[in-house]
């Protein structure tokens, strides 16, 4: 019952820092990093593509830890952390899956290929959308948090198995020849641009995550207050 209504001051500070980092990211990605020799300007989408993938991984890992913590402690706080991380993670994963084909079309000549990394990213996205759907469908159930936490663990454990099996599947078939992509040695300015973008996305993740987490807590509080009000009205009417 002690949820503060306003967002804390540090959060607004963080929004400012994130804004600066995102602007720096744009400058790095679009101007300061050198143009890639073979792919040209379109390669600059790489900085956002990779950063969003990494951020999504971080988010899903946070979701996994929070699910485990919820199963262990049964404190609603951890459930709020889990759902916030999953939701923001799906957003970043969507950015990753949308920027991928935009980059792939001019460079590989196709929008999509069922290669190991693409397919496993898509399956990972599907798993976490399932997680969110489960929460939505089970919203009126008293134990939805338990189920969601159990599924969160099932989903996270699946990601490496999916990756392994798809790699095996792909090496059994003649795969499409993938040209381009990031080579082993990249220009230090590209390296810097990538990491500035990643840092900006991580900050953005924290901002969105905390906002969503607060919202979840307030929803829980509202539900409790409504239940109390309902009980009170019943007592008065007797």
């Amino acid at each position, binding site marked *: 019952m002690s949820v503060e209504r306003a967002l804390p001051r540090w959060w607004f500070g963080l929004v400012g820092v994130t804004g600066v980092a995102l602007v720096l990211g744009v400058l790095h990605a679009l101007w300061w990093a050198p143009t890639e020799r073979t792919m040209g300007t379109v390669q600059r989408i790489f900085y956002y593509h990779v950063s969003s993938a990494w951020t999504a991984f971080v988010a899903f890992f946070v979701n996994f830890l929070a699910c485990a913590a919820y199963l262990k402690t049964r404190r609603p706080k951890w459930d709020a952390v889990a759902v916030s991380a999953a939701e923001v993670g799906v957003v970043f994963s969507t950015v990753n899956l949308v920027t991928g084909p935009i980059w792939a079309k001019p460079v590989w000549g196709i929008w999509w290929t069922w290669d190991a990394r693409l397919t496993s990213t898509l399956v990972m996205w599907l798993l976490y959308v399932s997680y969110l759907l*489960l929460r939505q469908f089970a919203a009126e159930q008293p134990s939805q948090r338990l189920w969601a936490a159990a599924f969160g663990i099932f989903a996270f454990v699946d990601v490496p198995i999916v990756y*392994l099996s*798809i790699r095996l599947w792909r090496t059994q078939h003649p795969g499409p020849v993938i040209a381009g992509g990031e080579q082993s040695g990249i220009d230090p300015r590209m390296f810097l641009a990538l990491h500035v973008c990643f840092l900006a996305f991580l900050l953005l993740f924290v901002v969105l995550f905390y906002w969503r987490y607060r919202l979840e807590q307030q929803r829980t509080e509202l539900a409790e207050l409504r239940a109390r009000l309902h009980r009170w009205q019943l007592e008065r009417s007797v």
Partner: protein
Amino acid sequence: MSYWAVSRRIMAKDLVSEARTREMTNAMLFFALLVLVLFSFSFQPTSDEERRLAAGVLWIAFLFAGLSVLDRSFWRERVNDCLDALRLAPASASALFLGKCAANVLFLLLAEGILVPLFLVFFDLSFRGDVGQWLLVLVLGTWALVVNGTFFAAMTVNLRSRELMLPLLLLPISVPALIAVVEATATALLGEGAMGVWIRVLIAFDVIYTTLALLLFETVLEGT
């Protein structure tokens, strides 16, 4: 009663109740058969590439059969509050889970035993590869679907949209197992390549998810 005796008793109860009512078996078999027939309108596997596709068709039929088995698994316990009685029984929840899984595996294997010969007849196919290994794939793949499916069926039994929710949870989780069974079946039909790697994937998948489900089932059951 010992742990295994509880599991056996649960399994026997499900088998007897299904044998007497047949509320699920008939519909499940007919549904899976329809899938095979409808697919046979759309293509006749003559080339190797189409034989590869046929393996996918077979597993789609199994998947439909499996979903109708799993959907009924805990649903039938709602009558007379049987689920509450099971929950209150002085027995381990994981023993209940294993018993349910065993019954579901048997139902699904029964369906597969009927569907496979029909599949071979309708699509004019034969196994050119090692049938013994393929039977192992069949059992491991069925277990992979059932172990997660039974777990999610217990979770979704009280949801209004349970019939929609079960496949939404089960299918993405089962992606590695589905890749393995379809590839292994294609290998068995074509008679080229090795199934060993897929059998290893299936064993790993089964061991990991059986362990997880046994550990978490009690938690999930207390909430249904």
